[in-house]
């Protein structure tokens, strides 16, 4: 697993973009710590946009907040940020795993997304995502649904490369 790029915002910004992603890895892992500038006491969406696109995306979600659980599907990939009306200095904690991001096949995505909030509700969700495109992912944007991502919001992009140790056999 190898760091590609880490971004931590020095000022509020509507999105975080990893551009010119090297095409030399097998999978991508992104970990995110986000907070928006809105007034929601809870969470809002942080849209995942492969190659900056909002089309051909789908999601299926199991979520729980407070004492409520549910499941839904939609045409974006579910991934949360802490809303700006939540307890101060609190950011989300999520991981996004994108398999075979350079393949000429649809891209499957696994997301575990959690928020926290000392003054209100927080949410956990496990997410199955899909970008139904045969294009390689060359950039990835995280876009705030509400306002901007605030200062200190961060996202870190890693590349993971498959291979062999010369000992283990697979058949």
């Amino acid at each position: 697993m190898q760091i590609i790029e880490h971004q931590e915002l020095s000022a509020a910004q509507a999105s975080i973009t990893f551009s010119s992603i090297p095409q030399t890895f097998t999978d991508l892992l992104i970990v995110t710590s986000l907070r928006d500038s809105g007034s929601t006491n809870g969470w809002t969406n942080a849209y995942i946009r492969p190659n900056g696109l909002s089309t051909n995306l789908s999601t299926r979600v199991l979520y729980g907040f407070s004492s409520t659980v549910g499941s839904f599907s939609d045409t974006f990939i579910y991934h949360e940020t802490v809303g700006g009306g939540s307890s101060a200095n609190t950011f989300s904690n999520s991981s996004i795993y994108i398999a075979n991001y350079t393949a000429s096949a649809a891209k499957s995505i696994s997301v575990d997304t959690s928020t926290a909030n000392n003054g209100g509700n927080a949410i956990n969700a496990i997410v199955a995502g899909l970008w139904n495109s045969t294009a390689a992912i060359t950039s990835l944007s995280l876009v705030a649904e509400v306002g901007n991502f605030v200062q200190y919001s961060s996202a870190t992009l890693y590349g993971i490369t498959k291979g062999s140790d010369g000992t283990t056999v697979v058949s």
Partner: protein
Amino acid sequence: MPTNTYTPLATISLTGTDSEIVFSNIPNTYRDLIIIASGQSTAANANILARFNSDSGSNYSWVYMGGDGSSTFSGSSSGTSGDWGNFPNAQSVSVFQIMDYSATDKHKTTLVRSNTASTYAIAYAERWASTTAITSISLTISGSGNSFASGTILSLYGVIA
């Protein structure tokens, strides 16, 4: 002294269908194994089944929770293979974390995240009731005649501890 880890051990990229994928000769020098399965099977309603060390006894059990897009569900079961989650004939990615696989003082726990955007998002906790160190892992698709589809990639990584 920090030690770099998350080491690629083996990988297979299918150029045709395959009914069984076996990782064998797994060294015992790591602590955890991680398998990434990306692709699909040949069946509309199918799961990945797992066996360790060719054990076909009733030594596998699991608990799971998931969402199908409208309802939540949770269940538990046991059998002669571990049920490692939905892997239908639609693009999917599954992450399997086999914890303490080389330990000989405990049963083996595997944490599973199974993701198919057109069907389910599911998490599992699995147990193989054996204290034997894992040296091989067999993965198949549930249902008679079903296989991993061409284009599916399965990769194994080792994590030291």
